[in-house]
C-alpha cells in the first residue's frame, strides 16, 4: 500500500513536472506598462442657450441693454473636472432675424464674481448669416485656467438699434447657442 502510494506520488510529480516545467513557459511580461496608459476622452456637451423675440427687445427700448443676468455655471470648476481638463473648444453660433444690430457679452466670472475673460459678439441686423466662433482653450489657445476657475457666466445683451422696428421675417429672434468639446485626462 505504502509502495503504491509512493509510486502514485512519483507519477504525479513526473507528470505535472513534464507539463509545467518542460512545457509551460511564457514570454517576458511587463505589467508596469499599465502606468503608461493614457485615457483622454473628448467630451461634448451643450452649454448655454439664449433666445429672445424682437418684441422683448423693443419693449426695453433702443440703444439699451435688454437683458443682463449672472448665472451659476460650475461645469468646469468642479474639482474633478478642473483637475483633468487639458484642452478644448467652445463653439458659439448666433442667428439674428430681428431688424436690429445686437451685441452680446459673455463674461466668465470666478467664485468672487471677478471677471476672468470676456467674449463679445456683435451681430448685424437680420436677416444675416449665422455667426460662428470657435474659441480654443489649452496649449494652442486661451489659458485653460479661465474655464477651470469659472463659477458663473454673466450674459449681457444690448440692442444697438431702435426700439420700434419689426423685422419682416416670421417670428424674428436672436438665438445664441454654445457647446463645448473638451479633452480630459482620466489617467
Amino acid at each position, binding site marked *: 500500500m505504502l509502495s503504491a502510494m509512493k509510486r502514485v506520488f512519483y507519477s504525479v510529480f513526473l*507528470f505535472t513536472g513534464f*507539463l509545467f516545467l518542460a512545457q509551460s513557459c511564457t*514570454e*517576458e511580461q511587463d505589467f508596469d506598462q499599465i502606468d503608461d496608459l493614457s485615457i483622454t*476622452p473628448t467630451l461634448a456637451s451643450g452649454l448655454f442657450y439664449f433666445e429672445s423675440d424682437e*418684441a422683448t427687445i423693443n419693449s426695453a427700448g433702443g440703444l439699451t441693454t435688454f437683458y443682463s443676468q449672472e448665472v451659476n455655471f460650475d461645469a468646469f470648476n468642479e474639482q474633478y473636472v478642473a483637475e483633468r481638463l487639458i484642452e478644448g473648444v467652445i463653439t458659439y453660433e448666433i442667428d439674428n432675424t430681428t431688424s436690429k444690430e445686437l451685441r452680446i457679452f459673455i463674461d466668465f466670472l470666478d467664485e468672487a464674481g471677478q471677471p476672468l475673460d470676456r467674449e463679445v459678439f456683435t451681430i448685424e441686423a437680420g436677416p444675416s448669416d449665422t455667426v460662428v466662433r470657435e474659441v480654443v482653450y489649452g496649449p494652442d489657445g486661451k489659458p485653460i485656467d479661465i474655464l477651470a476657475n469659472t463659477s458663473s457666466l454673466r450674459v449681457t445683451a444690448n440692442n444697438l438699434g431702435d426700439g420700434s422696428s419689426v423685422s419682416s421675417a416670421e417670428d424674428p429672434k436672436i438665438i445664441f*447657442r*454654445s457647446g463645448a468639446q473638451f479633452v480630459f485626462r482620466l489617467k
Partner: protein
Amino acid sequence: MRIANKLTYLVLFCGSTLFAQNKELLYDFYEIPQSLMVNPGVKTSQKWHAGIPVISGLSVQGASSGVTVNDLFANDGIDFTTKVQERLLDVMGNKDDFSTTSQIEGITVGFRGKNRPDDYYSFGIYGETDIITYWPKDLAILAFEGNGGDNLGRSFDLGDLNLRGEMINVFHFGINRKVSEALTLGARAKLYSSVFQFQSINNSGSFVTRQGQNNVYESTINADMQLQTSGVKGFYDIIEEDTGTTQKDVTSLFTERVLFGGNLGFGLDFGFSYNLSPQTTVTGSILDLGFINNSKDVWNYTFSGSTTTDGISIILPEDIDNVNNDLWQELIDEIDEALPRDENESSYISWRPVKVYGSIRYDFGQGGGSVLDNCGCAVNGGSGMASNRDYYRNSLGGQLFMMKRPRGVQAALTGFYQRRFGRVVSLKGTYTVDKYSFTNIGLGANVQLGPVNFYVLANNLLSYFNIADSHYASLQFGFNIISWNGN
C-alpha cells in the same frame, strides 16, 4: 479554530482562483469517479470510492475570448495605450467575455447498494464559483474616447454592461442505475447554499450626443439598468467597519453561509449512457437545472429613466423676470430627477448556469484484459454490451458541450481518443473547438495503483509554450480510493 480558519481561507482562495468550465477530458472518462459529476448516468463498475478530502477534485482554468495577457503586457516596446486601443477597444465585441467556473471538492463518496447492486449511490460537497463578465464594449469606448469628436452621433449601448457571478456550496446526492444491459440512467439532487450572488444581466438603454435641435449639442440618455446582489453587503459591511475582528467576522459569515446560513436553492442533474451496439455508446447529461432564492442580505441598485439635455437655457420673454441664477444646479437636479438611482432589498431568483453534455464513442482494439473486471458486485460481470468497454483498449468519439450564459449558449465541440494500458493507466487526448480557442489540445491521464487512483487532466497544451498568450488554460487533478471488491 486555527485549522478551521485555514480551511476556510483555503476554500475561499481555491474558490476564487481555481477555474473550470467545460470538462471535456473528464466527461465519460469512466475510470475516474468524478466523471459521475458531469454525467450521473455514466457507467460505473466500482464497489465504492472515496475522494481524498479537498484534493479529490481540483481544477484550474481561465478563459478570455478576446484579448490575452500577452497581447497587452508583452515587453514588445509598443506603446501601451496603442495596444489597448488596437488590441482591446478596436477588436473586442460585446460578446467577448472573461469567465471562470471553479470547483473544489470537499467530500465525495460513492457506494454500490447492497441489496440493489445495479444502483450506485454517490454524495458529497463541493464549492463552486462561477463568474462571467462580458466586455462592455460601448461603455469602454465611451470612457476611453468620450462622446465627442468622431463619436458625435454614436449611440452607446448601455446594455453592454452584462456580468454575473456567484459562490456557492453544493450538497449533492445521486443515484446511478443500470437499467438494462444497454442503458444506464442517473440523477443527482443538489442543495445550493449561497455565499454570494450578483448579476446585472438585463440592462438596456442608450446614450447619444448629437447636433442639437436648439443648442449646438444635445445629449439623450435612456436607461433601464439594475445590479442585483445577495450576500455581498454582509461581507462589505464587515470590511467597511474594520473593527479589528474583520478576519474572524468574515470567516464566521463565510462558514455560516456555506452551511445553509445564507440563501438556498435546489437543482437537479440527469444523465444516461446507452449502447447502440457492442462497440458504440452514446451518452448525455444536463447539469445544474436549478435556482437559488435570494432573499437574505439582498441589496439591489437601479438606474432608470430618460432625459435629453442641451445645457442651460434662457428664453425671453418667459425668463425675463427670473432672477434665479442657479440654473446650473437646476439642470443637474432635473437630470437627477429624470434618471433616479434607487436601492432596494427585493428578493430575486437566480438561475444556475445549465450545462449540457453529449457524446458518441466507438470502442475498438479488443484487448482481452478487463480494466474493471473485479467489481464483485455483479454489475459488469456479465457478457455482452454491459461490459463492452472492458474488452476494448481504444475509444474514439466526439463530445458536445453547451452552457447557458447571460448572452446565450456557449458551445464547444470535442473530438477525443482514449487508450487504456491494462488496469493501471488510461490516457485520453482531446481536440476542442470553442469561442476561446481553435487549437485546444488536451491530455488526461488516469493512474490506478491498487486502490489508489490519481488523475490529471490538462487542456490547451499548446498554450503552455507561452501561457500569457493563451485564451484558455486549465488543469484538473485529484486523488481517490477506489474498491472493486470487498476491500
